[in-house]
Protein backbone atom coordinates (compact mmCIF):
# COMPACT_ATOMS: atom_id res chain seq x y z
CA UNK A 1 0.00 0.00 0.00
CA UNK A 2 1.20 3.50 -0.83
CA UNK A 3 2.14 5.82 2.02
CA UNK A 4 -0.28 8.72 2.20
CA UNK A 5 0.63 10.51 5.42
CA UNK A 6 3.74 11.43 7.42
CA UNK A 7 2.74 8.82 10.04
CA UNK A 8 5.68 6.73 11.22
CA UNK A 9 3.26 3.90 11.95
CA UNK A 10 2.06 3.94 8.36
CA UNK A 11 5.60 4.01 7.01
CA UNK A 12 6.64 1.01 9.09
CA UNK A 13 3.60 -0.95 7.94
CA UNK A 14 4.11 0.06 4.32
CA UNK A 15 7.74 -1.03 4.50
CA UNK A 16 6.50 -4.51 5.41
CA UNK A 17 7.76 -4.54 9.00
CA UNK A 18 5.63 -5.87 11.81
CA UNK A 19 4.45 -2.74 13.58
CA UNK A 20 4.21 -2.63 17.36
CA UNK A 21 1.91 -0.30 19.21
CA UNK A 22 0.92 -0.08 22.82
CA UNK A 23 -1.21 2.24 24.85
CA UNK A 24 -1.19 4.53 27.83
CA UNK A 25 -4.25 5.66 29.71
CA UNK A 26 -4.23 9.30 30.84
CA UNK A 27 -4.47 9.91 34.59
CA UNK A 28 -7.39 10.92 36.78
CA UNK A 29 -5.65 14.21 37.36
CA UNK A 30 -3.50 16.78 35.68
CA UNK A 31 0.00 15.53 36.50
CA UNK A 32 1.80 15.26 33.16
CA UNK A 33 4.43 12.95 34.63
CA UNK A 34 1.91 10.19 34.87
CA UNK A 35 1.81 10.04 31.07
CA UNK A 36 5.44 10.84 30.36
CA UNK A 37 6.74 8.19 32.79
CA UNK A 38 4.63 5.43 31.24
CA UNK A 39 5.69 6.55 27.78
CA UNK A 40 9.34 6.67 28.81
CA UNK A 41 9.04 3.04 29.92
CA UNK A 42 7.87 1.73 26.55
CA UNK A 43 9.03 4.27 23.98
CA UNK A 44 11.97 2.33 22.56
CA UNK A 45 9.91 -0.84 22.16
CA UNK A 46 6.94 0.45 20.19
CA UNK A 47 6.40 2.44 17.00
CA UNK A 48 3.40 4.36 18.23
CA UNK A 49 1.52 4.83 21.48
CA UNK A 50 -2.26 4.94 21.67
CA UNK A 51 -3.72 7.35 24.15
CA UNK A 52 -7.12 6.28 25.34
CA UNK A 53 -10.06 8.68 25.42
CA UNK A 54 -11.85 8.57 28.77
CA UNK A 55 -11.84 4.78 28.61
CA UNK A 56 -14.68 2.93 30.32
CA UNK A 57 -16.34 6.37 30.49
CA UNK A 58 -14.33 7.38 33.53
CA UNK A 59 -13.34 11.06 33.36
CA UNK A 60 -9.62 11.53 32.83
CA UNK A 61 -7.13 13.95 31.35
CA UNK A 62 -8.09 14.41 27.70
CA UNK A 63 -6.53 12.21 25.09
CA UNK A 64 -5.49 15.18 22.96
CA UNK A 65 -3.47 16.88 25.72
CA UNK A 66 -1.81 13.60 26.62
CA UNK A 67 -0.98 13.01 22.93
CA UNK A 68 0.62 16.46 22.81
CA UNK A 69 2.75 15.50 25.82
CA UNK A 70 3.98 12.44 23.89
CA UNK A 71 4.56 14.47 20.76
CA UNK A 72 6.66 16.96 22.73
CA UNK A 73 8.79 13.98 23.84
CA UNK A 74 9.40 13.21 20.17
CA UNK A 75 7.13 10.14 20.25
CA UNK A 76 4.42 8.98 17.86
CA UNK A 77 0.96 9.16 19.45
CA UNK A 78 -2.24 7.56 18.20
CA UNK A 79 -5.08 9.86 19.17
CA UNK A 80 -8.04 7.75 20.28
CA UNK A 81 -11.31 9.58 19.79
CA UNK A 82 -14.73 8.41 20.84
CA UNK A 83 -17.98 9.74 19.46
CA UNK A 84 -19.66 9.53 22.85
CA UNK A 85 -18.61 12.91 24.19
CA UNK A 86 -18.30 15.26 21.23
CA UNK A 87 -20.49 16.38 18.39
CA UNK A 88 -19.18 16.88 14.86
CA UNK A 89 -18.03 20.42 15.65
CA UNK A 90 -15.90 19.28 18.58
CA UNK A 91 -14.59 16.19 16.75
CA UNK A 92 -13.41 18.22 13.77
CA UNK A 93 -12.02 20.90 16.05
CA UNK A 94 -10.02 18.38 18.10
CA UNK A 95 -8.72 16.76 14.92
CA UNK A 96 -7.43 20.18 13.84
CA UNK A 97 -5.93 20.77 17.28
CA UNK A 98 -4.10 17.45 17.03
CA UNK A 99 -3.01 18.25 13.49
CA UNK A 100 -1.55 21.54 14.66
CA UNK A 101 0.88 19.45 16.74
CA UNK A 102 1.49 17.11 13.80
CA UNK A 103 -0.21 14.19 15.44
CA UNK A 104 -0.48 11.83 12.52
CA UNK A 105 -2.59 8.91 13.76
CA UNK A 106 -6.19 8.72 14.87
CA UNK A 107 -8.23 5.77 16.11
CA UNK A 108 -11.97 6.21 15.62
CA UNK A 109 -14.20 4.60 18.25
CA UNK A 110 -17.72 4.89 19.57
CA UNK A 111 -16.63 4.54 23.22
CA UNK A 112 -18.07 2.60 26.12
CA UNK A 113 -21.50 3.64 27.27
CA UNK A 114 -21.39 6.33 29.95
CA UNK A 115 -23.32 4.12 32.37
CA UNK A 116 -20.06 2.24 33.05
CA UNK A 117 -18.23 5.34 34.20
CA UNK A 118 -18.22 8.03 36.84
CA UNK A 119 -20.86 10.17 35.12
CA UNK A 120 -23.62 7.66 34.59
CA UNK A 121 -26.20 10.44 34.73
CA UNK A 122 -24.61 12.36 31.87
CA UNK A 123 -25.81 12.62 28.30
CA UNK A 124 -24.08 10.86 25.46
CA UNK A 125 -23.66 12.60 22.13
CA UNK A 126 -23.18 10.09 19.31
CA UNK A 127 -23.82 12.74 16.69
CA UNK A 128 -21.60 10.54 14.51
CA UNK A 129 -20.72 6.89 14.97
CA UNK A 130 -17.24 5.38 14.64
CA UNK A 131 -17.66 4.65 10.91
CA UNK A 132 -18.77 8.19 10.28
CA UNK A 133 -15.79 9.49 12.26
CA UNK A 134 -13.53 7.45 9.97
CA UNK A 135 -15.27 9.08 7.01
CA UNK A 136 -14.89 12.51 8.60
CA UNK A 137 -11.16 12.14 9.28
CA UNK A 138 -10.58 10.91 5.72
CA UNK A 139 -12.71 13.66 4.22
CA UNK A 140 -10.88 16.35 6.15
CA UNK A 141 -7.54 14.92 5.03
CA UNK A 142 -8.28 13.89 1.47
CA UNK A 143 -10.61 16.69 0.42
CA UNK A 144 -9.16 19.34 2.70
CA UNK A 145 -12.67 20.30 3.67
CA UNK A 146 -14.86 20.53 6.73
CA UNK A 147 -18.05 18.46 6.84
CA UNK A 148 -19.85 21.76 6.30
CA UNK A 149 -18.05 22.16 2.98
CA UNK A 150 -15.62 24.97 3.85
CA UNK A 151 -11.94 24.70 3.00
CA UNK A 152 -9.52 23.78 5.78
CA UNK A 153 -6.34 25.82 5.96
CA UNK A 154 -3.56 23.22 6.38
CA UNK A 155 -5.76 20.10 6.48
CA UNK A 156 -5.01 17.33 8.99
CA UNK A 157 -2.74 14.59 7.69
CA UNK A 158 -3.67 11.55 9.70
CA UNK A 159 -3.38 7.82 9.22
CA UNK A 160 -6.88 6.68 10.06
CA UNK A 161 -7.55 3.64 12.21
CA UNK A 162 -10.34 1.87 13.97
CA UNK A 163 -10.93 -1.07 16.24
CA UNK A 164 -12.35 -4.41 15.20
CA UNK A 165 -13.60 -7.14 17.41
CA UNK A 166 -13.81 -10.52 15.67
CA UNK A 167 -15.28 -11.98 18.88
CA UNK A 168 -18.29 -9.74 19.29
CA UNK A 169 -21.71 -10.94 18.26
CA UNK A 170 -23.07 -11.77 15.80
CA UNK A 171 -20.09 -13.45 14.13
CA UNK A 172 -21.66 -13.55 10.67
CA UNK A 173 -21.42 -9.79 10.30
CA UNK A 174 -17.87 -9.43 11.64
CA UNK A 175 -16.39 -9.58 8.14
CA UNK A 176 -19.11 -7.41 6.54
CA UNK A 177 -18.50 -4.97 9.38
CA UNK A 178 -14.81 -4.80 8.54
CA UNK A 179 -15.81 -4.32 4.89
CA UNK A 180 -17.92 -1.40 5.98
CA UNK A 181 -15.05 0.18 7.89
CA UNK A 182 -12.79 -0.29 4.87
CA UNK A 183 -15.42 1.31 2.67
CA UNK A 184 -15.59 4.19 5.15
CA UNK A 185 -11.86 4.66 4.60
CA UNK A 186 -10.13 2.97 7.50
CA UNK A 187 -6.42 2.31 6.90
CA UNK A 188 -5.39 0.32 9.95
CA UNK A 189 -7.19 -1.83 12.47
CA UNK A 190 -6.20 -2.63 16.03
CA UNK A 191 -8.10 -5.72 17.06
CA UNK A 192 -9.66 -6.58 20.38
CA UNK A 193 -7.48 -8.78 22.63
CA UNK A 194 -7.12 -12.15 20.96
CA UNK A 195 -7.14 -15.35 22.97
CA UNK A 196 -9.23 -17.51 20.65
CA UNK A 197 -6.68 -17.87 17.85
CA UNK A 198 -8.86 -20.12 15.74
CA UNK A 199 -11.69 -17.64 15.55
CA UNK A 200 -9.34 -14.74 14.86
CA UNK A 201 -7.68 -16.67 12.06
CA UNK A 202 -11.05 -17.60 10.59
CA UNK A 203 -12.08 -13.94 10.60
CA UNK A 204 -8.81 -12.94 8.99
CA UNK A 205 -9.10 -15.67 6.37
CA UNK A 206 -12.65 -14.65 5.50
CA UNK A 207 -11.58 -11.01 5.35
CA UNK A 208 -8.68 -11.93 3.11
CA UNK A 209 -10.92 -13.99 0.83
CA UNK A 210 -13.01 -10.90 0.30
CA UNK A 211 -9.92 -8.88 -0.60
CA UNK A 212 -10.30 -6.60 2.39
CA UNK A 213 -6.74 -7.11 3.60
CA UNK A 214 -5.38 -5.48 0.45
CA UNK A 215 -6.71 -2.20 1.74
CA UNK A 216 -6.17 -2.26 5.48
CA UNK A 217 -3.38 -3.21 7.89
CA UNK A 218 -4.37 -5.45 10.77
CA UNK A 219 -2.62 -5.11 14.11
CA UNK A 220 -3.43 -8.06 16.32
CA UNK A 221 -4.35 -7.08 19.87
CA UNK A 222 -2.73 -9.00 22.74
CA UNK A 223 -3.13 -8.58 26.48
CA UNK A 224 -1.10 -10.60 28.99
CA UNK A 225 -2.87 -12.10 31.98
CA UNK A 226 -1.48 -10.90 35.28
CA UNK A 227 -3.17 -13.71 37.17
CA UNK A 228 -5.60 -16.61 36.89
CA UNK A 229 -8.22 -14.28 38.35
CA UNK A 230 -7.78 -11.88 35.48
CA UNK A 231 -8.09 -14.68 32.95
CA UNK A 232 -11.36 -15.75 34.55
CA UNK A 233 -12.58 -12.16 34.71
CA UNK A 234 -11.81 -11.59 31.02
CA UNK A 235 -13.57 -14.82 30.15
CA UNK A 236 -16.69 -14.31 32.20
CA UNK A 237 -17.16 -10.61 32.66
CA UNK A 238 -15.82 -8.67 29.70
CA UNK A 239 -18.29 -8.58 26.81
CA UNK A 240 -16.76 -9.32 23.44
CA UNK A 241 -13.71 -11.19 24.75
CA UNK A 242 -13.32 -14.92 24.30
CA UNK A 243 -10.86 -16.80 26.47
CA UNK A 244 -10.56 -20.53 25.78
CA UNK A 245 -10.88 -22.79 28.83
CA UNK A 246 -7.41 -24.25 28.35
CA UNK A 247 -5.84 -20.81 28.85
CA UNK A 248 -7.79 -20.23 32.05
CA UNK A 249 -6.75 -23.69 33.20
CA UNK A 250 -3.12 -23.10 32.32
CA UNK A 251 -3.10 -19.93 34.42
CA UNK A 252 -5.01 -21.58 37.26
CA UNK A 253 -2.65 -24.59 37.29
CA UNK A 254 0.34 -22.27 37.72
CA UNK A 255 1.40 -21.44 41.30
CA UNK A 256 0.21 -17.98 42.21
CA UNK A 257 3.69 -16.41 42.39
CA UNK A 258 4.50 -17.73 38.93
CA UNK A 259 1.26 -16.59 37.31
CA UNK A 260 2.48 -13.19 36.08
CA UNK A 261 5.42 -14.88 34.38
CA UNK A 262 3.12 -17.47 32.85
CA UNK A 263 0.84 -14.69 31.58
CA UNK A 264 3.77 -13.07 29.83
CA UNK A 265 4.85 -16.44 28.40
CA UNK A 266 1.37 -17.01 26.97
CA UNK A 267 1.36 -13.53 25.46
CA UNK A 268 4.71 -14.11 23.78
CA UNK A 269 3.58 -17.49 22.45
CA UNK A 270 0.50 -15.77 21.02
CA UNK A 271 2.61 -13.18 19.23
CA UNK A 272 4.93 -15.89 17.90
CA UNK A 273 1.93 -17.80 16.65
CA UNK A 274 0.29 -14.77 15.08
CA UNK A 275 3.48 -13.89 13.25
CA UNK A 276 2.85 -16.95 11.13
CA UNK A 277 -0.70 -15.94 10.27
CA UNK A 278 -1.26 -14.34 6.91
CA UNK A 279 -2.78 -10.89 7.13
CA UNK A 280 -1.27 -9.93 10.49
CA UNK A 281 0.77 -6.76 9.98
CA UNK A 282 1.67 -5.97 13.54
CA UNK A 283 0.76 -6.12 17.20
CA UNK A 284 -1.09 -3.90 19.56
CA UNK A 285 0.17 -4.80 23.03
CA UNK A 286 -2.34 -3.77 25.66
CA UNK A 287 -0.67 -4.49 28.98
CA UNK A 288 -3.42 -3.14 31.18
CA UNK A 289 -1.87 -1.31 34.17
CA UNK A 290 1.24 -3.33 33.43
CA UNK A 291 3.07 -1.11 30.96
CA UNK A 292 6.44 -2.05 32.46
CA UNK A 293 6.14 -5.50 30.90
CA UNK A 294 5.85 -4.20 27.33
CA UNK A 295 9.64 -4.10 26.76
CA UNK A 296 10.06 -7.72 27.84
CA UNK A 297 7.14 -8.89 25.70
CA UNK A 298 8.45 -7.07 22.64
CA UNK A 299 12.01 -8.18 23.17
CA UNK A 300 11.25 -11.84 23.82
CA UNK A 301 8.87 -11.92 20.84
CA UNK A 302 11.76 -11.02 18.56
CA UNK A 303 10.25 -7.64 17.74
CA UNK A 304 13.16 -5.63 19.15
CA UNK A 305 14.91 -3.49 18.07
CA UNK A 306 12.23 -1.48 16.29
CA UNK A 307 12.95 -0.55 12.70
CA UNK A 308 13.73 2.99 11.69
CA UNK A 309 12.02 4.62 8.74
CA UNK A 310 12.61 7.85 6.86
Amino acid sequence: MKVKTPSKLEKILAAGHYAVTSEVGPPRGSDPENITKKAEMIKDYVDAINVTDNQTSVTRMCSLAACIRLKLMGLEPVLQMVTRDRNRIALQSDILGAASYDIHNILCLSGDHQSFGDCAQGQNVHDLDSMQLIQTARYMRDEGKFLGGGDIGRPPNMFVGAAANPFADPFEIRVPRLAKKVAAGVEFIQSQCIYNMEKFELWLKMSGDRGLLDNVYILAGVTPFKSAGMARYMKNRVPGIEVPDELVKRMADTPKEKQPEEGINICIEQIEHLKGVEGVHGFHVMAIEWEEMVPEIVERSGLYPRPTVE
Partner: protein
Amino acid sequence: MIVADKKPIEEIIEEVKNNEKILILGCNECVTVCEAGGKKEVGVLASALRMYFLNQSKEVKIDEITLERQCDHEYLEEIRDVMDQYDAVVSIACGVGVQFMAEKYHSTPIYPGVDTCFLGVTEERGLWTERCQACGHCILASTGGICPIARCAKRVLNGPCGGSAKGKCEIDKEIDCAWQLIIDRLEALDRLDEYEALCPLKDWSTDRAGGPRKVVREDVQQ
Protein backbone atom coordinates in the same frame (compact mmCIF):
# COMPACT_ATOMS: atom_id res chain seq x y z
CA MET B 1 -48.36 5.98 21.88
CA ILE B 2 -46.78 8.35 24.38
CA VAL B 3 -45.83 6.22 27.37
CA ALA B 4 -45.86 7.76 30.83
CA ASP B 5 -45.31 6.45 34.32
CA LYS B 6 -46.90 7.51 37.58
CA LYS B 7 -45.02 9.99 39.69
CA PRO B 8 -44.45 9.01 43.34
CA ILE B 9 -47.33 10.30 45.46
CA GLU B 10 -44.84 12.16 47.70
CA GLU B 11 -43.75 14.27 44.74
CA ILE B 12 -47.34 15.16 43.85
CA ILE B 13 -48.14 16.00 47.49
CA GLU B 14 -45.13 18.33 47.52
CA GLU B 15 -46.56 20.07 44.42
CA VAL B 16 -50.06 20.65 45.77
CA LYS B 17 -49.84 20.56 49.56
CA ASN B 18 -50.62 24.27 49.96
CA ASN B 19 -53.69 24.25 47.71
CA GLU B 20 -57.27 23.91 48.85
CA LYS B 21 -59.24 23.27 45.68
CA ILE B 22 -57.55 20.79 43.40
CA LEU B 23 -58.67 19.30 40.10
CA ILE B 24 -57.15 15.96 39.06
CA LEU B 25 -57.32 15.96 35.27
CA GLY B 26 -56.93 12.74 33.34
CA CYS B 27 -56.63 12.03 29.64
CA ASN B 28 -58.44 9.32 27.75
CA GLU B 29 -55.70 8.69 25.18
CA CYS B 30 -52.18 7.27 25.45
CA VAL B 31 -51.85 7.60 29.22
CA THR B 32 -55.07 5.63 29.66
CA VAL B 33 -53.65 2.78 27.57
CA CYS B 34 -50.42 2.75 29.57
CA GLU B 35 -52.42 2.94 32.80
CA ALA B 36 -50.75 6.06 34.12
CA GLY B 37 -53.20 8.90 33.56
CA GLY B 38 -56.66 7.69 32.62
CA LYS B 39 -59.96 7.84 34.50
CA LYS B 40 -58.99 4.95 36.76
CA GLU B 41 -55.70 6.56 37.75
CA VAL B 42 -57.46 9.90 38.32
CA GLY B 43 -59.63 8.14 40.88
CA VAL B 44 -56.70 6.43 42.56
CA LEU B 45 -54.66 9.63 42.79
CA ALA B 46 -57.67 11.64 44.07
CA SER B 47 -58.26 9.06 46.82
CA ALA B 48 -54.64 9.07 47.86
CA LEU B 49 -54.60 12.86 48.10
CA ARG B 50 -57.89 12.92 50.05
CA MET B 51 -56.39 10.45 52.47
CA TYR B 52 -53.27 12.56 52.85
CA PHE B 53 -55.17 15.77 53.55
CA LEU B 54 -57.52 13.98 55.91
CA ASN B 55 -54.53 12.77 57.90
CA GLN B 56 -53.24 16.32 57.95
CA SER B 57 -56.69 17.47 59.19
CA LYS B 58 -56.92 19.81 56.22
CA GLU B 59 -60.12 20.40 54.34
CA VAL B 60 -59.25 20.22 50.68
CA LYS B 61 -61.66 19.87 47.78
CA ILE B 62 -60.46 17.37 45.25
CA ASP B 63 -62.41 16.83 42.03
CA GLU B 64 -61.90 14.37 39.21
CA ILE B 65 -62.32 14.95 35.50
CA THR B 66 -60.98 12.96 32.58
CA LEU B 67 -60.96 14.61 29.16
CA GLU B 68 -60.98 12.88 25.81
CA ARG B 69 -57.58 14.48 25.14
CA GLN B 70 -55.45 17.25 26.59
CA CYS B 71 -53.62 18.04 23.36
CA ASP B 72 -56.55 19.63 21.50
CA HIS B 73 -58.21 22.97 22.16
CA GLU B 74 -61.75 21.68 21.92
CA TYR B 75 -61.41 19.23 24.79
CA LEU B 76 -59.56 21.65 27.06
CA GLU B 77 -62.38 24.16 26.45
CA GLU B 78 -64.84 21.71 28.03
CA ILE B 79 -63.58 22.65 31.50
CA ARG B 80 -63.44 26.43 31.00
CA ASP B 81 -66.65 26.96 32.98
CA VAL B 82 -65.35 25.10 36.04
CA MET B 83 -61.72 26.17 36.08
CA ASP B 84 -62.40 29.12 38.37
CA GLN B 85 -63.37 26.65 41.11
CA TYR B 86 -59.77 25.41 41.46
CA ASP B 87 -56.56 26.91 42.69
CA ALA B 88 -54.47 24.09 41.20
CA VAL B 89 -54.72 21.32 38.63
CA VAL B 90 -52.76 18.08 38.62
CA SER B 91 -52.73 16.92 35.01
CA ILE B 92 -51.91 13.27 34.60
CA ALA B 93 -51.75 13.54 30.84
CA CYS B 94 -48.32 13.47 29.22
CA GLY B 95 -46.10 16.55 29.32
CA VAL B 96 -47.85 17.79 26.20
CA GLY B 97 -51.18 17.93 27.99
CA VAL B 98 -49.72 19.59 31.07
CA GLN B 99 -48.22 22.33 28.93
CA PHE B 100 -51.25 22.85 26.72
CA MET B 101 -53.37 23.21 29.86
CA ALA B 102 -50.89 25.74 31.24
CA GLU B 103 -51.00 27.73 28.01
CA LYS B 104 -54.78 27.77 27.98
CA TYR B 105 -55.37 28.48 31.67
CA HIS B 106 -52.66 31.00 32.20
CA SER B 107 -53.43 32.01 35.76
CA THR B 108 -53.95 28.54 37.26
CA PRO B 109 -50.96 26.42 38.30
CA ILE B 110 -50.92 23.11 36.42
CA TYR B 111 -48.76 20.39 38.00
CA PRO B 112 -47.52 17.23 36.31
CA GLY B 113 -48.78 13.99 37.85
CA VAL B 114 -46.86 11.60 35.62
CA ASP B 115 -43.39 11.33 34.15
CA THR B 116 -43.57 11.27 30.37
CA CYS B 117 -41.18 8.57 29.20
CA PHE B 118 -41.13 7.73 25.50
CA LEU B 119 -42.98 6.76 22.32
CA GLY B 120 -43.59 3.08 22.62
CA VAL B 121 -45.73 -0.01 22.56
CA THR B 122 -47.51 -2.31 24.99
CA GLU B 123 -45.51 -5.52 24.84
CA GLU B 124 -47.74 -7.08 27.42
CA ARG B 125 -49.91 -5.69 30.19
CA GLY B 126 -47.67 -3.74 32.51
CA LEU B 127 -44.73 -3.71 30.10
CA TRP B 128 -44.21 -0.82 27.71
CA THR B 129 -41.07 -0.37 25.63
CA GLU B 130 -39.63 2.36 23.47
CA ARG B 131 -39.75 2.32 19.69
CA CYS B 132 -39.38 5.87 18.39
CA GLN B 133 -37.53 9.05 19.31
CA ALA B 134 -39.35 11.26 16.81
CA CYS B 135 -36.10 12.33 15.12
CA GLY B 136 -38.11 13.90 12.32
CA HIS B 137 -36.65 11.90 9.45
CA CYS B 138 -37.46 8.22 9.43
CA ILE B 139 -34.73 5.78 8.42
CA LEU B 140 -36.66 2.57 9.09
CA ALA B 141 -36.73 1.70 5.38
CA SER B 142 -33.02 0.97 5.52
CA THR B 143 -32.84 -0.69 8.92
CA GLY B 144 -35.28 -3.53 8.46
CA GLY B 145 -38.02 -1.64 10.27
CA ILE B 146 -36.11 -1.47 13.57
CA CYS B 147 -34.87 1.88 14.79
CA PRO B 148 -31.27 2.12 16.01
CA ILE B 149 -31.84 5.69 17.16
CA ALA B 150 -34.54 4.66 19.61
CA ARG B 151 -33.28 1.20 20.46
CA CYS B 152 -29.48 1.42 20.53
CA ALA B 153 -28.03 2.96 23.70
CA LYS B 154 -25.47 4.77 21.52
CA ARG B 155 -27.87 5.40 18.63
CA VAL B 156 -25.16 3.92 16.41
CA LEU B 157 -26.27 4.16 12.79
CA ASN B 158 -23.71 1.66 11.54
CA GLY B 159 -23.80 -0.93 14.28
CA PRO B 160 -23.50 -3.05 16.23
CA CYS B 161 -20.82 -1.64 18.51
CA GLY B 162 -18.35 -3.91 20.27
CA GLY B 163 -20.65 -4.19 23.26
CA SER B 164 -23.17 -6.50 21.63
CA ALA B 165 -23.05 -9.90 23.31
CA LYS B 166 -25.38 -12.84 22.63
CA GLY B 167 -27.93 -10.45 21.17
CA LYS B 168 -27.98 -8.19 24.21
CA CYS B 169 -26.75 -4.68 24.89
CA GLU B 170 -23.65 -4.05 27.01
CA ILE B 171 -25.56 -1.73 29.33
CA ASP B 172 -28.17 -4.28 30.39
CA LYS B 173 -28.62 -7.97 29.67
CA GLU B 174 -32.40 -7.39 29.55
CA ILE B 175 -32.08 -5.03 26.59
CA ASP B 176 -31.93 -6.45 23.08
CA CYS B 177 -29.10 -5.19 20.91
CA ALA B 178 -30.94 -3.16 18.27
CA TRP B 179 -28.38 -4.07 15.66
CA GLN B 180 -28.76 -7.78 16.36
CA LEU B 181 -32.49 -7.30 15.78
CA ILE B 182 -31.79 -5.38 12.57
CA ILE B 183 -29.43 -8.06 11.29
CA ASP B 184 -31.88 -10.86 12.17
CA ARG B 185 -34.63 -8.99 10.40
CA LEU B 186 -32.55 -8.22 7.29
CA GLU B 187 -31.66 -11.91 7.21
CA ALA B 188 -35.34 -12.89 7.45
CA LEU B 189 -36.08 -10.50 4.60
CA ASP B 190 -33.18 -11.96 2.62
CA ARG B 191 -31.68 -8.48 2.48
CA LEU B 192 -28.53 -8.94 4.60
CA ASP B 193 -26.45 -7.52 1.74
CA GLU B 194 -27.99 -4.14 2.58
CA TYR B 195 -26.16 -4.23 5.91
CA GLU B 196 -23.03 -3.19 4.10
CA ALA B 197 -24.46 0.09 2.84
CA LEU B 198 -22.92 2.84 4.97
CA CYS B 199 -25.50 4.95 6.70
CA PRO B 200 -24.49 8.56 6.00
CA LEU B 201 -24.06 11.23 8.65
CA LYS B 202 -27.50 12.03 9.93
CA ASP B 203 -29.04 15.46 9.60
CA TRP B 204 -30.12 16.00 13.20
CA SER B 205 -31.70 19.37 12.45
CA THR B 206 -35.09 17.66 12.26
CA ASP B 207 -34.43 16.23 15.72
CA ARG B 208 -34.40 18.08 19.04
CA ALA B 209 -31.07 19.57 17.94
CA GLY B 210 -32.86 21.87 15.49
CA GLY B 211 -34.91 23.54 18.21
CA PRO B 212 -38.66 23.24 18.87
CA ARG B 213 -40.29 21.68 15.86
CA LYS B 214 -43.53 22.18 14.04
CA VAL B 215 -45.43 20.54 11.24
CA VAL B 216 -47.32 22.95 9.00
CA ARG B 217 -49.86 21.46 6.63
CA GLU B 218 -51.39 24.18 4.52
CA ASP B 219 -53.50 21.62 2.65
CA VAL B 220 -55.46 20.83 5.78
CA GLN B 221 -55.54 24.32 7.26
CA GLN B 222 -59.07 25.81 7.03
